[in-house]
């Protein structure tokens, strides 16, 4: 296998991360917000794996595993909250849940 320059991997991770950020800022539907967060976490993991591959060590993949566990826990709790939100506000619009305004 010929080597891929680490910058390209990081650029890919960065692009995915940026897409995730844009997704969070653009979408009002809370499902899409959660999905965009998952994209961001995934991109961060890609960066770790790329770095691990550079140094030919397992640490990168270990980090990815931990990120995965975190993402799983977070998404389950988040979806439970989505269910509660839908029950209370009768919609999945994040702008509807703005009672903490100044």
């Amino acid at each position, binding site marked *: 296998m010929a080597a891929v320059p680490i910058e390209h991997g990081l650029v890919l991770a960065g692009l995915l991360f940026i897409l995730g*950020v844009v997704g*969070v*800022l*653009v979408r*009002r539907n809370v499902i899409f*917000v959660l999905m965009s967060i998952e994209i961001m976490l995934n991109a961060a993991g890609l960066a770790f794996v790329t770095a691990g591959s550079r140094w030919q060590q397992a640490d990168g993949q270990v980090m990815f595993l931990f990120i995965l566990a975190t993402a799983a826990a977070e998404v389950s709790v988040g979806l439970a909250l989505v269910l509660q939100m839908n029950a209370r506000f009768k919609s999945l619009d*994040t*702008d509807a*849940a*703005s*009672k*903490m*305004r*100044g």
Partner: protein
Amino acid sequence: MLGLLWLIPALPFAGFAILALLGPVISRTLAAVVGVGSVGLAALITLLVGADFMASAGGHGYSQTLWSWMDVGGFNPGITLYLDSVSLLFVVVITFVGFLIHLYSAEYMADDEGYSRFFAYMNLFVGSMLTLVLADNLLLLFLGWEGVGLCSFLLIGFWYRDPYNGYAARKAFVVTRVGDTALLVGMFLLFNNLGTLQIQELMQRAGQSWPVGSSLAVAAALLILGGAVGKSAQLPLQTWLPDAMAGPTPVSALIHAATMVTAGVYLIARTNAIFLLAPSVLQLVAIVGALTLLIAGFAALAQTDLKRVLAYSTISQIGYMFLGLGVGSWSAALFHFFTHAFFKALLFLGAGVIILALHHEQDMHRMGGLRKSLPLTFWTFLIGAASLAALPWVTAGFYSKDMILTEAWVSGPSGQLLAAAGFLGALVTSMYTFRMVFITFFGRERTHVTRRPELRISAVLVILAFGALAAGLLELPKNILGGLPILSGFLHSALPAEGAHEVSTSTEWALQIVSALLSLGGIYVAYLLYYRTDRYAEDPSRAPWGAGLNRFWRSGWGFDSLYDLLFVRPYVAFARINKGDFINAIYEAVAGLNVLFHRVLSSTESGIVRWYAAGIAAGAIIAVAIGVIR
């Protein structure tokens, strides 16, 4: 006897104090006794002091220090009274004419509700005026100056319930204020440069330190002239005097004819040394006088209100006094002041009788035929008018006016131009004077007489009429009876030598005949136009070309509109703009800015998640940028 000098101003002040404190509780008679008596006593003491002065002091002035006013860093004016021939002349006029007018007012104001208040103000006025002329230093003079200004304000607006009177009083005060400020600045300048305000001392030091024509002297003289112009209602500050006729007629007689308006003349005569050091300003004094006498004279031709004619006449006659001062003939100016006090007061008091008799009617065109209904008033008024119009050789006014014009004529080429203006003014004077006489006293009686004058008023009128004729005897020119320079000789001790121009007897005769012709000519023209009231159709003011001129002259040559446009409107516009007080707006803007920031910042707390996420993203970008891009 000279030691009683201080009583002369003190008595009227005491009268004021008594009337101010006890006025409402004492009876009218007692108020009149206090008011008239204080001035009468002052007149009596003037006699004693004057006699003593002329017998003893002779050449020098007599100083009486009452106490020290302040002593601050080398500046120590005192309450010091200074009596010399000039101030004695003024004191005599003020106390005597003042006493007569007070006596007149005792009857005139009899059915007015502010009786004691009137006499309180009048006494305060007399006291202040006496302070002014007896002051040894400019600061005390200024105290008197301000005092008479205050009393003028109080007395013009005496019938305060009518808002027009308040307006006229304010106008008088504000316009003279302009002059007062100039005088004050002039005093600052004099003290700053010469270190004293004591008048005799001042004139000596000025003579030593300042060369003739130096800019400091010119500046000081100009500023003093500014003050004089304001108080004496000369160009350009003459607009207040016609409106000041809103006050009771005795007030007009005393303040706005005989005494206060002559304060400017007194001031210039007193500080003569400074004016002599600035010949250009002295020339300006004469020019101001000449212009004013012409402007006011023509304006008087077009007035319909009896008192306004007399007001413009006063402005015009004081113009003559300024003219006399300006050509360096100090005693001529003061002589004219002396005679003017008598005949002008007489004319005003006579007008007062007419107004009261016709139940406060002041429009001349509604009078007429009073010759038969008010005979005493008619004859005394006629004598006063004759003196004003300078009826030749028999009236006092003729001699004083002639003296001014003669002195002007011989003082040089510019003097001849000024004298010519004076002669034209004399013609106009007799025209408007007799216009006034003919319209008011002759012809058909339009308004009927409801009230006739009694003893006090009649006696005063007679005394003043006598003065209007006899006062001329104080100073007869050389060609009449060999000359009787009593007054100029008397004043010589206090005034600088006049430009020693020798006047030949033939010149005297020539000028007197010119004067006489002009005076009689004016009377004749007035007779032609106004004697028979059915001749009104020929009155030039009715012609189309004349009507505009008539309106222009009646408004006093449009000065009121000019000042309104130049000063009042911009000021009012500015005040309206500043109604919200833009200085305050700056401070409120600071507070407003704070509120704006608060609103902006609190709007970022929208409770919307996306907004906060965007904030985090933007912050991250900025943080990275700061870290990476240096």
